[in-house]
């Protein structure tokens, strides 16, 4: 029952994020927009490229969707509203997100097209940049909670949110989350202007619908992760827990979608350079800082 509820809320969240994305690009709030777009996509014919690697081409969208759902499966929407409350929950989020990269590499290689291939490998470069930054802030968060269990992490923020006590980690995790779901300005794999759609270019019809759905679910999962780890999850007065989580997740998703439009796409070299030379030292400083505060508090 919990599983069903969580999945329903997850996909409802993905739908709302799709509405938000439509709002950021056209300025109009069309609630029926994603529905009609999905039906239109399902009604189009579906043609595969000439010589694809069939297994990889077909598996990539599914794997993207599965990894996004698995990442959200360990994140709680409410005190007892979680699909799998793993003891290593915070780490399992990362394990699931790693397969986003595998899916994109498959999607890049599968269709036997130059644009998709360049896009897929560019995402691998982006992974090298963000992979540390998506794990190290979680370390600091887990330090404060004393556990990797996601529900415990939320409960540890009952006094004050992690975003306020670990602002550095919050900012780094937020940016890394944007890089994971390749939203602009980190949209190297789907660059519309440079690579004619990149990995999405070769998918059409129902497969494209799965890719788009997977992308929306990924955005929701990452926004949920930001909410759970840094914004206090379900904690808040008056409203029930799941309402707070949903509200915070939607705000985070809206911020992710709008922020990137005001900045040009970052070059791959810059992403890697800033990720490693600037991001990792800052993340280490963050861990150090959290460690010191914890030691001082326990004395």
């Amino acid at each position, binding site marked *: 029952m919990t599983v069903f509820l969580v999945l329903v809320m997850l996909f409802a969240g993905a739908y709302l994020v799709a509405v938000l994305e439509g709002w950021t690009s056209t300025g109009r709030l069309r609630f029926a927009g994603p529905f009609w777009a999905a039906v239109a996509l399902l009604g189009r014919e579906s043609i595969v490229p000439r010589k694809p*690697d069939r297994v*990889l081409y077909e598996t990539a969208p599914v794997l993207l969707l599965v990894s996004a759902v698995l990442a959200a499966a360990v994140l709680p929407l409410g005190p007892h509203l979680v699909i799998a409350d*793993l003891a*290593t929950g915070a780490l399992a989020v990362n394990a699931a997100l790693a397969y986003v990269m*595998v899916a994109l590499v498959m999607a890049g*290689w599968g269709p036997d097209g130059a644009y998709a291939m360049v896009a897929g*490998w560019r995402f*691998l470069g982006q*992974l090298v940049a963000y992979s540390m930054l998506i794990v190290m802030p979680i370390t600091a968060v887990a330090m404060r909670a004393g*556990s990797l269990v996601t529900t415990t992490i939320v409960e540890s923020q009952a006094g004050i949110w992690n975003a306020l006590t670990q602002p550095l980690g919050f900012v780094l995790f937020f940016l890394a989350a944007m890089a994971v779901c390749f939203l602009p300005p980190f949209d190297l794999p789907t660059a519309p202007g440079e690579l004619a759609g990149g990995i999405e270019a070769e998918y059409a019809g129902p497969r494209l619908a799965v890719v788009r759905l997977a992308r929306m679910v990924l955005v929701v999962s990452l926004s949920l992760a930001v909410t759970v780890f840094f914004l206090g999850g379900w904690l808040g007065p008056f409203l029930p827990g799941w309402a707070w989580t949903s509200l915070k997740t939607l705000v985070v998703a809206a911020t992710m979608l709008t922020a990137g439009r005001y900045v040009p796409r970052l070059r791959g070299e810059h992403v890697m350079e800033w990720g490693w030379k600037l991001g990792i030292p800052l993340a280490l400083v963050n861990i150090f800082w959290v460690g010191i505060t914890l030691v001082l508090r326990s004395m």
Partner: protein
Amino acid sequence: MAQAFFTGFFGLAAIWFGVVVFRTSSMVRSALALLFSQAAIGAMFLAMQTEFLGVLQIMMMATEMAIMAIFMVMYMMDPGGLGGMDMTHQKRLSIAAGIFGGAAAVAVSLLGGWGTVGPSTMPEAQVAALGEELLGRSMLVFETAGITILTAMIAATAVAIERRR
């Protein structure tokens, strides 16, 4: 009962993906098959209730194998496998090594004194115990390993950069 079933299932999946690694002639498929073979081993760990090890295995193998895939594409000929290249080399030596290694593994598993099988601890307790072990008794081992890997990374990058004229 369910545990034995899932452990066996994932074990067989790991073996099957391992065989696919050599049966296909596409480099990328080979790398990704190896990835899923390792992920199946990680799932075995999960089925055996060593949660941290399982999650860690699944997470690390994804990144590692994908990077292996890109190196294969960069340096190997015919990464797509359309030429139907045979992926096996040095057949006699590898068959001999495989038989010997398999026999050794079976011998160890059958003849080794494993002790009695006890109930597994709760996953949260496992994680806590692992943490204390890593930063307590085994800290020297892990830190040395970490520094060695970091040194190797930096050295490899430095060697790969061409001298500026």
